[in-house]
């Protein structure tokens, strides 16, 4: 039997959802007009006042905002409430230049946790469950979000955080974890480790909630089989709140967007035109209920498809596909956002040529990133240790910029393939996005 955390909301009629959205949108537009100078300025530039937004139909009049706006307004520019009313900060995994800081009032946290509680309940979670949260805790939203949702559902919550696989498995066995929340790659790694130790008969897991990175259907089947569970996808982004912006139900056919809190649109990334159901485009979110950090028509750069088709689970909220790609060149490696331009900046600063190639792969369920750099006469010397030291210096600079280890491989000049004179910058061998 399908379980719901808030059935009256999750299964509300489309008319009811529309009514909520219109009423909340009108209120939110007034709120940002009054409290966030950037929004007022953008609306004025577009010749709009809050009176022009009367229902969800008027949403398309509002200008878009992007990650660059968030960066420009860092840290307090988009705050719609005084700091005295904010109780929490979370942040994206990006680097100094691209870091996004999101603020939450107690009410914001409460609603975010509701969203996560819906996801846990959709995965079959009840107060009889032991919810094992192996997402990272801290600035990353994964741990805190699912932790809060688990409390709301009444699960016995195990705030494991990531790492220390030995202890993860021991607790799983000793305390009878039934729901696992982590990244899909870590789930696959845990599954393998459990099999290596021959402990598969001693774990009681029944469901997993996996997100924060792209994963394939093959990977889902592999994890489901190895752990004997049903694996549910979850989607979210720090800018909008964190995990739980949308989540999968028992049908496992797309993720339901929590439409009472967020309006999802899919647009043509080139023209900005709103696309109908079934058409592939860039996902755009508007936060309806966020108090501290409301984002209006935020372009996620994730490419996906929306469907309002009735779902067999009984929920009425719109479903989105897994992200099918990106409309920018951002890579997600080990859950961390990586832009090729960041790598280019480091290479330039360190005196290397602009000829480089980024090779991303997944080895033993763990992401790897290698930066191939063409050797230059200036960087070369007859001393192996001197060249190795320069290589090490580059590795350290990349680590400082990206926040993760990237292997550096020095290659011969002109070794990097150029197609029609233009270098292919990124080779992603993971094939995570399915068309």
């Amino acid at each position, binding site marked *: 039997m399908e379980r719901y955390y808030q059935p009256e909301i999750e299964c509300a009629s489309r008319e009811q959802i529309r009514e909520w959205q219109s009423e909340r949108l009108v209120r939110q537009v007034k709120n940002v007009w009054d409290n966030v100078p950037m929004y007022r300025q953008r609306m004025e530039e577009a010749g709009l006042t809050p009176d022009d937004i009367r229902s969800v139909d008027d949403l398309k009049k509002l200008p878009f905002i992007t990650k660059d706006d968030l960066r420009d307004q860092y840290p307090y520019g988009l705050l719609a409430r005084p700091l005295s009313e904010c109780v929490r900060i979370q942040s994206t995994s990006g680097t100094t230049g691209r870091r996004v800081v999101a603020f939450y009032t107690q009410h914001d946290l409460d609603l975010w946790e509701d969203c996560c509680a819906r996801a846990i309940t959709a995965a079959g979670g009840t107060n009889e469950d032991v919810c094992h949260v192996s997402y990272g805790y801290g600035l990353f939203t994964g741990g805190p979000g699912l932790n809060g949702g688990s409390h709301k559902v009444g699960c016995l919550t195990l705030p494991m955080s990531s790492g220390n696989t030995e202890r993860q498995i021991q607790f799983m066995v000793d305390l009878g974890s039934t729901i696992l929340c982590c990244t899909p790659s870590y789930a696959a790694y845990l599954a393998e480790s459990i099999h290596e130790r021959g402990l598969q008969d001693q774990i009681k897991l029944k469901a997993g909630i996996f997100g924060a990175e792209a994963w394939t259907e093959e990977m889902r089947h592999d994890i489901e089989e190895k752990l004997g569970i049903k694996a549910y996808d979850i989607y979210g982004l720090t800018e909008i709140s964190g995990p739980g912006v949308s989540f999968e139900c028992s049908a496992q056919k797309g993720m339901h967007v929590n439409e009472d809190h967020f309006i999802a649109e899919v647009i043509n990334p080139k023209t900005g035109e709103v696309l109908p159901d079934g058409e592939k485009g860039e996902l755009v979110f508007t936060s309806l209920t966020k108090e501290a950090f409301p984002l209006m028509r935020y372009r996620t750069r994730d490419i996906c498809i929306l469907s309002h088709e009735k779902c067999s689970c009984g929920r009425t909220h719109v479903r989105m596909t897994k992200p099918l790609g990106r409309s920018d060149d951002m890579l997600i490696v080990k859950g961390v956002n990586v832009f090729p331009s960041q790598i280019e900046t480091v290479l330039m600063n360190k005196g290397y040529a602009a000829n480089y190639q980024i090779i991303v792969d997944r080895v033993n369920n763990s992401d790897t990133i290698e930066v191939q750099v063409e*050797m*230059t*006469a200036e960087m*070369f*010397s*007859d*001393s*192996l*240790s001197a*060249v*190795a030291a320069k*290589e090490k210096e580059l590795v350290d600079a990349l680590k400082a910029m990206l926040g993760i280890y990237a292997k550096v*491989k*020095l*290659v*011969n*000049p*002109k*070794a990097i393939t150029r197609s029609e004179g233009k270098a292919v910058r990124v080779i992603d061998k993971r094939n995570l996005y399915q068309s």
Partner: protein
Amino acid sequence: MTIKQISVFLENRPGRLAEFTKVLSGNGIDMRALSLAEASDFGIVRIIVNDVYNAATVLKDAGYIFSITEVLAAPMPDEPGSLSKTIQILGDNDINLEYMYAFTTRKKGMAFMVLRVEDNKKAIDVLSRNDIRTISQEELQEY
């Protein structure tokens, strides 16, 4: 006296060294000595040739990254202990040896040690005080 060593950057990939040697042989360059140093993903080939200018031109045209370094070449009597003595002398005089390798000559059946140190002048002084000679690039061609 010093001789000129050409150090060439090579990626650590199958066939790279073969390619390199083919470029040299294809242009009629005879290597007097060769030494290979390798890290996990790249290597440095160090060679000694008679005509440095010619070899450098060929390598440049073939797109290699290389550097030319002055190194010491000391003839070694073919008897036990002569290498040990040379290294001992350098060590006693606080001269750090970065790397070294040996080569023999056809014409006069001699053995030479190539020594790479930071301060060539100091090393030459120390060695000559101990009756160890170092040869020049021109001299090299006689052996």
